[in-house]
């Protein structure tokens, strides 16, 4: 096991069909103790923590809104209280809205920017401060998207926030390297997660077939596959990797058409 004795915090992990849970489960499978977070769904979140404990790891469930700095501070306080320290922080919480450019409204734009940008800023600042206070070292990993490379017109605000992860991860990697902290991000493509359920492209069998056809590997990604990519960055295997982006998308990001 590659993460024995390590402790982790994963945001956005309440749903059993979330990438966050796939990440938490993969970290626990490699031996890490894992605190799970989400903004609501306290009961589901508690169930995820129980599943982690059933794997023989320590866990805790912390409900907190990542858009609120004081709640993020409390989340880290509770995570450190439960596990003693935090070696790995996975900033995974994110939201998506489907609208074309001309349909963007301030309310929806700000909702996406608040979680995907400001939530990331608050969590990563708190993570880095905690890691520095622990004496340095640590792993910060973001869940971004294939849209970090190529944005889709039906999700322009979401795509903008995900492309921005390249810059934000890069700057954090540059500035936090002196503390031994690495910062990287993974780029899921089509994952059959709760987040993607409302996608207009996935409401019919034809739509799902077209989606499958767009992916060179001809299938959706599994949440655990996202988790195992995070494990690479979190483990000693990723010691020399910082500021990197790893698409885990079955090739979606390199295909204009796939047939």
């Amino acid at each position, binding site marked *: 096991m590659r993460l024995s004795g390590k402790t982790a915090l994963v945001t956005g992990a309440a749903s059993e069909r979330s990438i966050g849970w796939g990440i938490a489960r993969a970290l626990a499978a490699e031996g890490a103790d894992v605190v799970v977070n989400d903004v609501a769904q306290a009961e589901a979140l508690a169930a995820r923590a129980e599943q982690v404990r059933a794997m023989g790891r320590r866990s805790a469930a912390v409900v907190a809104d990542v858009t609120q700095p004081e709640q993020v501070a409390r989340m880290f306080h509770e995570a450190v209280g439960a596990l003693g320290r935090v070696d790995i922080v996975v900033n995974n919480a994110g939201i998506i809205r489907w609208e074309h450019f001309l349909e963007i409204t301030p309310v929806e734009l700000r909702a996406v920017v608040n979680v995907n940008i400001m939530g990331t800023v608050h969590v990563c600042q708190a993570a880095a401060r905690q890691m520095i206070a622990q004496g340095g070292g640590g792993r910060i990993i973001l869940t971004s998207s294939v849209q970090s490379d190529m944005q889709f017109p039906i999700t*322009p605000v979401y795509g903008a926030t995900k492309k921005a992860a390249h810059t934000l991860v890069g700057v954090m990697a540059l500035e936090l390297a002196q503390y031994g902290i690495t910062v990287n991000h993974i780029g899921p493509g089509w994952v059959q997660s709760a987040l993607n359920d409302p996608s207009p492209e996935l409401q019919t069998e034809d739509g799902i077939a077209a989606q499958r056809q767009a992916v060179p590997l001809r299938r959706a990604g599994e949440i655990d596959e996202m988790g195992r990519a995070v494990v690479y960055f979190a483990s000693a295997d990723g010691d020399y990797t910082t500021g990197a982006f790893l698409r885990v998308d079955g090739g979606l990001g390199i295909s204009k058409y796939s047939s």
Partner: protein
Amino acid sequence: MNTHEALLGRRCLLAGTIDTTLVEVGAALVAAGAEVMAAESPLWGDLVTEAVRLEADDPAALATDLRAIEPPDVLVIQAGWRERGRFLDSTPQDWAAALTQNFEAPVYLSQAVARRMIEAGKGGRIIFLSGVEGVMPFEEMGTAGTTLTMLTAMARMMAVDLARYGITVNVVTVGWMDSGRLANFGAATQQHILEGIPAGQAGTPADVGAAVCFLASAAAGYVTGVNMTVDGGYLLTRAGGRTMFEGG
């Protein structure tokens, strides 16, 4: 290329951060025959033919403001928030200002102007002025860079959605200019920065004006969704130092 009168009679709305660069862009557009509309500022001199009121953070008010003028043919927005600071020191206030100036306001204004262009049925040109921080990460420029990257991504998707209306959307990424911020640094830092520019010298606002004139002209009708860097090659390589601002 003879650009004289390439934009004869084109109505250009210039918005965002008004500085030497944007004023020179206006001058280049006027030299090519265009009319310039902009919010009032003493920096414009006599370039502006029509003063415009723009309440940039409120789409409804913006739509009303734009009703007061004939629809523009060309929209140029300079996303101008560029404060320096380390990521760990950045405050929610910094981020709010950067997000507003570099992303949210440009999105709402271009959306409102695009609607006017679509109504007028004559196509149009939307051009954002961004910075090198939005293309690659630089220490101490995380807040500016992240928000500029958001705008460049949005511009690409705008280009997709507005292409059917004959509206092109492009970004001009501006490198170090011989005006403005470069002059704020000491001689050693200026030299370090200049050594990182393959062209060996800073650009001029006129270089930016020429790029904007091309993208605004009929010659660029099939160019959309690009990010044109006007930086003397700055982003292609790096100098020996750690930061953009070695030596502060």
